[in-house]
């Protein structure tokens, strides 16, 4: 058994069914081994898409997934996808080919120091020096990616090591013993008691749920906590889906681009319970004023998140599922109904001041109608830009999933991530929603979708601009638009035709619901273009 075969054997033992990648000479032995195995390889059209597809697959399967590229430019093309996964704590194992060991460091053809280049975007990385190390490296890589705060792990493997025969018989380790990595925090009983006491005393508690709740599979426990104790909840963009939109305890997404009433709820509370959220600038623009007004419990699996942005809080480090299971066993007084009443009142008295153009399609209505018409367990993948914020703001969450690149804000995420999600869950309805800018950033992936006959639905909000930058230039630079106009290309009907996809088009609110029905019912992959007036803004 050579190194490449050993790696593929490890993938099989990890239960990996599908990997996404792009070959090259430096990873050719690995591809030879994949071809002879039970692992399905899906060829993408550019390496970044391999990372995003594995990301979408990982978020739906809730397991570590794999992407693979060659050396040099193949590996560097993957960096944005690694940074995207790292920012959102998505578990990936990325395998990159490397030039022959004896050539490493000599700047030979297609050599890149990918470990050095990805240092700040991966949880950990390896350079394989000996084929005999492969089983324990692979085991560790999957372990590190999927435990504690999840994230991408990179394995760089030189071409000659892939070809080298193993000296020892192949044996996959049962467990991992790393003296520097102990991700399973035992929950500190004293801190837990302080948290319980603080919740008991609070008159106006509020949960702020982040993506960590979903990553830790803690939605049922958090939901039970909210329902049992009548504690209301707001979410960050990554926490959308912890509670359905129409849940009586849900009070919207907070932040710059969230619901004003969610922000008012935060400021009116007397105890904010932050769970699995980074308190990033878009969600909490002024952490200084928050920490002055509200007492905060900060629950996170990553102790370094505590105190990174927010000042004195009551910290509790641990796994969300475990913590809320424990909290649900405690008898807490039900939350004061006046508090819920106040929030209801805030919600209903907050007037949306935004003006919408009468022309073309109203993007807010579009997201509402689309998501209401989608299956209850459908997967909605929003790209980045105005489309993302209109989506997050208006998406009608039922029992499905809402995916987006929340941390890194990587344009072009939606199409490959939706492809990965659909590959993972072929029976579920998956819709990618993007703008005309983000669509064109991943347009090449239509080839992958067409070849694999993946019945993915892609909705493009077309306003001929990089809308969110345009909006920023309007407000911050006196409407001096610079470098943001996309004009009328491409001809989407022709693009759809080129890839044998269905094509739907809509330019008015009247025809929109019917057109969405036809689009969603289309047998096979389809693109729907909705014309949006460029004057529509997010804020």
């Amino acid at each position: 058994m050579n190194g490449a075969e050993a790696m593929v054997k490890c993938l099989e033992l990890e239960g990996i069914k599908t990997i996404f990648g792009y070959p090259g000479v430096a990873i050719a032995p690995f591809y030879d081994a994949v071809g002879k195995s039970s692992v399905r390889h899906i060829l993408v059209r550019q390496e970044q898409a391999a990372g995003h597809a594995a990301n979408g697959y990982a978020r739906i399967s809730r397991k570590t997934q794999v992407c693979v590229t060659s050396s040099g430019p193949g590996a560097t093309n993957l960096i944005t996808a690694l940074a995207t996964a790292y920012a959102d704590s998505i578990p990936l194992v990325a395998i990159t080919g490397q030039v022959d060991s004896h050539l490493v460091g000599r700047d030979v053809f297609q050599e890149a120091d990918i470990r050095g280049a990805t240092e700040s975007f991966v949880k950990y990385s390896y350079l394989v020096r000996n084929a005999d190390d492969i089983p324990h490296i692979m085991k560790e890589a999957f372990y590190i990616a999927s435990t504690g705060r999840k994230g991408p792990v990179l394995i760089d493997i030189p071409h000659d090591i892939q070809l080298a025969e193993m000296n020892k018989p192949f044996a996959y380790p049962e467990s991992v013993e790393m003296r520097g990595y102990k991700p399973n925090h035992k929950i500190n009983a004293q801190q837990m008691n302080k948290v319980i006491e603080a919740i008991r005393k609070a008159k106006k508690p509020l949960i702020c749920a982040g993506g960590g709740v979903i990553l830790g599979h803690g939605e049922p426990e958090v939901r039970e906590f909210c329902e049992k104790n009548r504690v209301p909840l707001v979410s960050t963009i990554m926490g959308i889906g912890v509670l359905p939109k129409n849940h009586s305890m849900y009070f919207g997404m907070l932040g710059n681009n969230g619901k004003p009433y969610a922000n008012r709820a935060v400021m009116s509370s007397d105890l904010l319970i932050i769970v699995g959220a980074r308190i990033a600038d878009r969600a909490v623009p002024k952490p200084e004023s928050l920490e002055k007004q509200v007492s905060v419990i900060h629950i996170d699996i990553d102790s370094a998140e505590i105190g990174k942005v927010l000042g004195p809080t009551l910290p509790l480090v641990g796994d969300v599922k475990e913590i809320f299971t424990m909290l649900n066993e405690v008898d807490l007084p039900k939350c004061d109904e006046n508090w819920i009443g106040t929030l209801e009142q805030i919600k209903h008295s907050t007037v949306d001041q935004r003006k919408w153009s009468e022309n073309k399609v109203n993007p807010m209505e579009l997201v509402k109608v689309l998501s209401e018409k989608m299956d209850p367990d459908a997967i909605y993948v929003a790209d980045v830009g105005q489309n993302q914020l209109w989506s997050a703001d208006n998406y009608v969450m039922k029992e499905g999933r809402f995916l987006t690149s929340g941390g890194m804000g990587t344009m072009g995420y939606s199409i490959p991530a939706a492809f990965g999600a659909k590959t993972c869950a072929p029976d579920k309805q998956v819709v990618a929603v993007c703008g005309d800018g983000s669509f064109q950033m991943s347009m090449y992936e239509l080839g992958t979708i067409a070849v694999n006959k993946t019945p993915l639905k892609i909705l493009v909000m077309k306003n001929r601009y990089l809308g969110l930058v345009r909006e920023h230039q309007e407000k911050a630079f006196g409407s001096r638009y610079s470098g943001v106009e996309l004009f009328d290309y491409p001809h989407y009907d022709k693009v759809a035709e080129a890839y044998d996809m269905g094509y739907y088009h809509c330019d008015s609110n009247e025809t929109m619901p019917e057109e969405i029905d036809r689009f969603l019912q289309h047998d096979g992959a389809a693109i729907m273009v909705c014309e949006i007036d460029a004057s529509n803004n997010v804020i």
Partner: protein
Amino acid sequence: MKGIFSVLVENHDGVLSQISGLFARRGFNIDSLVVGETEQRDVSSMTIVSTGDQRTIDQIEKHLNKKPDVIKVRRLEENRSVSMEMMLIKVGCTPANRSTLIEICSIMEGRIMHVSPRSMMIEVHGTPERISDFIEMVRSYGIIEMQRTGVISLGRS
């Protein structure tokens, strides 16, 4: 405030760059960083001295702990640990003022490593403060060049 971290790390390639990269990326200060072997071949020891407010020093400890290659982080209190540094310093001196320089060396336990007609090289070790004091004492002779090792530190108990 000062943070002195005694960090045990896996002794393999790329670990130093991971640690220094962490400080650079997050805007943490490095006053000094010393790496060396320990009694175990596969473990290296780093002593990192940093300055920052309490929150920054706490964050440094947490981020160091997150690295899988970091085996152990100990935050050393200045009064409950022993810290040492070494310096080589070359100062100008002529036959006329050589004897006063020798006198400073003998009071402050500087060891004369080399003498030339126009300069003298001295080795000093001790606490960082002591080394700084020595520099002040010889500054007027003219410092030609000098090198400090940075602090190494061990907890007392």
